[in-house]
């Protein structure tokens, strides 16, 4: 047997040439790398909590909230939705002191609340490692917004209703004196409100 040196066949030569060319091309043109590093940051901010209630005390669930900065009362600074208890939290920019307007609306009912934000030093921002414990601390300054009524307290409201009713009933009694046909309408006994 004669040991012949291994000479590649033409097909092998072409294959090798193609493979090495491909290898060189991938080195020269690296594919874009997909990184999976996540960076989370958190800040401790002063937040304002708005609660929207109907005047009977029911929360306005999922009301639409629009926040306007004091510098621009026309353009919404932030938009959002209250939760099912009518609560909405927003962190006003501390560098914009003044009256922040919060507009609450649902199905044609709504109101505007002005929140006065005093100028203060802005807290330092910190970069946190990506862990699940980085819950931002908020110092809520809770403001209750009662749509359609300034108070949910039943006592003043009840007194006001009673005095209004008494006014109408008194009017009825007053005019019934002038009618020739005696009493004008059924009389109700009302306790007068002192």
């Amino acid at each position, binding site marked *: 047997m004669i040991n012949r040196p291994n000479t590649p066949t033409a097909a092998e030569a072409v294959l090798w040439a193609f493979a090495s060319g491909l290898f060189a091309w991938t080195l020269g043109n690296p594919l874009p790398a997909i990184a999976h590093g996540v960076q989370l940051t958190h800040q401790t901010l002063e937040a304002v909590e708005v609660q929207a209630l*109907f*005047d*009977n005390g*029911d929360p306005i*669930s*999922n009301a*639409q909230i*629009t926040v306007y900065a004091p510098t621009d009362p026309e353009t*919404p600074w932030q*938009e959002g*939705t209250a939760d099912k208890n009518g609560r909405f939290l927003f962190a006003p920019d501390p560098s914009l002191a003044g009256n922040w307007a919060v*507009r609450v*609306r*649902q*199905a*044609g*009912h*709504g*109101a*505007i609340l002005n929140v006065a934000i005093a100028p203060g030093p802005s807290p330092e921002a910190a970069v946190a490692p990506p862990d699940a414990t980085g819950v931002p601390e908020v110092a809520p300054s809770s403001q209750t917004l009662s*749509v*359609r*009524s*300034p108070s949910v307290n039943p006592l003043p*409201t009840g007194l*006001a*209703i009673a005095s*209004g*009713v008494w006014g*109408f*009933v008194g*009017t*009825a*009694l007053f*005019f*019934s004196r*002038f*009618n*020739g*046909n005696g*009493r*004008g*309408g*059924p009389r*109700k006994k009302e306790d007068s409100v002192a």
Partner: protein
Amino acid sequence: MHIPDGILPASLCIAGYGATGAATWYSLRQINRDRNPQAQIPKASLLTAAFFVASWIHIPVPPVSVHLVLNGLLGTVLGYYAFPAILIGLFFQAIMFGHGGLTTLGVNAILMGIPALIAYQIFQMRHWFKTQWGNITLSLFAFLAGGIGLGLAAAIFFVLIITTIPGELDVTTEKNAIYGLMLAHIPLMLIEGLFTAMLVIFLNRVKPELIGD
């Protein structure tokens, strides 16, 4: 049902005041044609008290709750006195409790007062049906007047609100909320219709002249 301040554009509020002025003038002119315009004032005043209190009577219609309005009832029982009565009731609701608002007082008076006058006309149609079932006709037309009076007010409210949704809101969400509230007023129409019929039957039994002819 009351449109609060800050929802409608200023032009609509001004137009509402203009229309309310005209409707009040017309109602007062009609009242002045009575033999004794003061005769109905005690009745009107008591029903204004009922209208004033009605908006605190909430009826839960899941997922929302609606309150009584009674504008159809006032129209049915008071006739032309209903418009000034509703205007006065709304004024006190606005200044004492913030129900509705002073800028929208004109619009609110139109959306509750005009349906009340229409309810009165519906109630008057009962005279076309002179049958031996007088009481049934009376209660049926009172029911229709009370229900339709509220239904028309609700319809005007929703048209005004839907056509003036500001651009910065999520229009779809707002429209869905409005449709939900609109549906909730259908049971209220039945309730107010029944309420009106019961009151008319009661007055007819106790003091028929209070209903008029």
